[in-house]
């Protein structure tokens, strides 16, 4: 570690975040390496180290001989200032080497509000922000992750985007770059070659024209680039082992536990949920593989908690078997099992008895909307009876705290729907009064609402976000009607959701806005202490753009959507039929009950598409 860094680390908060040296980190001999990858996460160490995608891709890349993949995270504000003052460029944790000397800087974009952090990392690395200004082949600056399903706002900055699952695609790209280095290709030559790889989007190979009203007039691919770029699905998920050798942080992170991915995709088809659409088709890992991976993850890490991750954990068809296999190992060792993302309609006594075996954590459910009517609109098919029944089971089982997540501003929401959240919370409280095992401890019901952000590739991708003032009015309405003392209500900030909505469905012209927001000091906008709405509004204004145009405008089906350059494998006609069904308040059955023919089945030869429903 050099002297400058040592001095900086004496002055910053939580210096262990920048020191590296963690257990299980992968260090290779530079002499044996011909491709160096910097896996960059545009948020702090605590967030990035908790990210499952980072763990999966780090593992996949380092399995390749002669490739060394290292981790890079965004520094907190104090460290950012120290690095700039001392002239310490952004470095990778394993080797301490400068990111600008790597062959690839690969960013994970999972949250729109992290865009400025990604730009700031490029700036800290001493690299020009714009792809066009980086003439050399390396470092190639690329991005993947959920946000890349609308790559356009960040199109100016990245040389290419990897669309979909990265286990195979990332590695194919590394091989291609290694060959290009050997062949001494120029960057444009390499990019043309890369565009031929399924799932790769090279923005510089597409022209975008606009109508006078600001909507997209056309997207024109050049030099044989595909339109649309169809996302990749990693083959063989069902029978694969989950990566189990994750780096064990030496300082506390947000999700400080071993994690294995139970399911990929989701059978439910909630109409607002981008993950539910873009990770189709739904696939579940075999219980034997999960138990094996879970136990080896615990052995390799020494964690005392294992979490079973997925978009909807209780939808694994053999979850009890998975839990039992794992508990056999965990229980005698005081290791607890945690199951986030449980659904209120299939949480059972049997399941509860398994998650509370060692330590009892809180229970969280996401009814998303207060009324049946609105839940039908969004296709969140959980009934009030099911939710209350689940709460009864939990309260009888000794739980005394429940968290309930809702969204405000969903399409078709009325004041009655808002008030229904308060009523539902009260009914949960009544259920506790009627069924609690131990009333002396009291009950805590935490209700929180976020502002609905319409996302690309969902049934609601054409919908308008409610204006900020309207969201705030609904928050006040709900607050005034949340009277019970044991029910606490918290809500997300409307300003952040507004900018998130504008970026989520933005076009290429937002590149200039993002650059301006960074220039104005945007660093870690995902954090309340760094977010500043004024900076964003000024940046939009500087380029004559209106965030309302992106966030709060209802789009016509005929409009060319900026993100139509990318396909999730789900047909647009299916999304339209879902949006229309929402307007009629009709629900769509889950993929296991009946295949709704969304189109994603064509992407992959396994998973729920082949287990039942229409094709069964």
């Amino acid at each position, binding site marked *: 570690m050099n002297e400058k860094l040592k001095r900086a680390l004496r002055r910053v908060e939580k210096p*262990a975040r920048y020191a590296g040296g963690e*257990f299980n980190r992968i260090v290779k001999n530079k002499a044996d390496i011909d491709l160096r990858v910097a896996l960059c996460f545009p948020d702090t160490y605590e967030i990035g180290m908790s990210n499952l995608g980072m763990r999966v891709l780090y593992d996949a890349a380092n399995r390749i001989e002669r490739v060394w993949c290292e981790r890079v995270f965004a520094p907190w504000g104090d460290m950012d200032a120290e690095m700039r003052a001392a002239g310490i460029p952004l470095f990778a944790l394993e080797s301490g080497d400068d990111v600008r000397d790597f062959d690839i800087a690969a960013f994970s974009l999972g949250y729109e509000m992290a865009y400025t952090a990604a730009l700031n990392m490029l700036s800290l690395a001493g690299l020009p922000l714009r792809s066009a200004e980086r003439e050399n082949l390396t470092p190639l600056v690329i991005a993947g992750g959920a946000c890349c399903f609308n790559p356009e706002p960040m199109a100016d900055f990245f040389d290419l985007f990897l669309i979909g699952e990265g286990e195979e695609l990332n590695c194919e790209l590394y091989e291609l770059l290694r060959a290009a280095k050997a062949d001494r290709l120029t960057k444009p030559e390499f990019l043309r070659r890369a565009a031929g790889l399924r799932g790769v989007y090279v923005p510089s190979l597409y022209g975008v024209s606009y109508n006078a009203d600001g909507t997209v007039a056309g997207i024109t691919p050049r030099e044989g680039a595909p339109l649309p770029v169809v996302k990749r699905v990693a083959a063989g998920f069902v029978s694969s082992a989950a990566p189990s050798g994750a780096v064990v942080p030496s*300082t506390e992170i947000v999700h400080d536990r071993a994690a294995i991915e139970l399911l990929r995709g989701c059978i439910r088809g909630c109409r607002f949920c981008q993950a539910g659409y873009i990770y189709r088709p739904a696939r579940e890992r075999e219980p034997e593989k999960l138990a094996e991976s879970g136990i080896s993850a615990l052995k390799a890490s020494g964690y005392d908690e294992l979490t079973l991750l997925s978009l909807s954990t209780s939808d694994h068809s053999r979850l009890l078997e998975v839990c039992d296999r794992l508990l056999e190992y965990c229980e005698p060792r005081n290791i607890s099992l945690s199951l986030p993302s449980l659904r209120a309609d299939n949480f059972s006594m049997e399941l509860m008895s398994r998650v509370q075996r060692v330590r009892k954590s809180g229970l969280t459910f996401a009814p998303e909307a207060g009324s049946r009517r609105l839940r039908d609109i969004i296709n969140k098919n959980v009934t009030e009876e099911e939710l209350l029944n689940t709460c009864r089971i939990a309260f009888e089982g000794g739980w005394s705290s429940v968290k309930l997540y809702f969204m405000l501003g969903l399409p078709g929401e009325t004041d009655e729907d808002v008030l229904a959240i308060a009523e539902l919370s009260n009914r949960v409280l009544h259920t506790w009064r009627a069924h609690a095992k131990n009333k002396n401890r009291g009950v805590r019901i935490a209700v929180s609402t976020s502002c609905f952000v319409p996302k690309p590739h969902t049934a609601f991708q054409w919908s308008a976000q409610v204006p900020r003032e309207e969201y705030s009015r609904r928050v006040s309405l709900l607050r005034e009607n949340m009277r019970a003392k044991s029910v606490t209500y918290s809500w997300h900030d409307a300003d952040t959701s507004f900018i998130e909505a504008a970026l989520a469905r933005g076009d290429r012209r937002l590149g200039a806005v993002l650059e301006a927001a960074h220039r104005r000091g945007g660093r870690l906008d995902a954090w309340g202490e760094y977010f500043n709405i004024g900076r964003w509004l000024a940046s939009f204004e500087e380029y004559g753009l209106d965030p309302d145009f992106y966030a709060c405008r209802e789009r016509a089906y005929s409009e060319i959507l900026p993100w139509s350059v990318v396909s999730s494998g789900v047909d647009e006609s299916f999304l339209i039929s879902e949006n229309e069904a929402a307007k009629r308040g009709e629900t769509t059955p889950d993929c296991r009950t009946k295949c709704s023919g969304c189109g994603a089945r064509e992407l992959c030869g396994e998973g729920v598409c082949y287990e039942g429903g229409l094709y069964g």
Partner: protein
Amino acid sequence: MGKSRLLMSKLGAAKYISHLDFMRTARRAFARAEIPLRCSEGFNPHPLMSFALPLSVGQESVCELLDFETAGEMPPDALRRLNAALPEGISAGELYEAGRKPGLLRWLEVEGRLYYDGGIPDGASEALGVFFASGSLVIRLKTKRGEQETDIAPRIRGAAFTDAGGGVIAARAVISAQNPTLNPDAIAAAAGAAGFAPDFAEWRRAEIYDEDMRVFR
């Protein structure tokens, strides 16, 4: 099984691990080494282990004592297994049955490097030696009651300063380990009070002693 004691080092990158995180790291290392620890009873069981003297973030040590109790027999190759399970910079040197209580630990020997970016001021090492031997070292020290003028001389048993070249003065001091404790950073602060404030200082715990200056294990 009675209490066991581990003599550990914490060097390099590991010096940035805070005390609480060091506990967490040690706990996980025991789990990886498959040496089950005795746990507390109750709602949220946690392994029974403690460090003798919490170490400040940014300081190295070659003499950290960790007391713990195993749930079963201590495996004969426990030390090897633990070392294989510890992250970079942390190692376990000796494993033995815990004898005297850590409360009897009295003195701490520290090694420091005081950096002078503009070169060592003329005669600084000698002047510091004289200053530290003067019997009164009043500096502002953070205490429970806020920052206070404190004479730290009683907490320093001896201090020596030598030119190490390259703008660095090497310091070696024996200071009070606990009741009251003294953070070696106070030595750099006192050097400042003598008119020789370093631009940067780093410290390493070198040895621990009892009241009679016998090495404590």
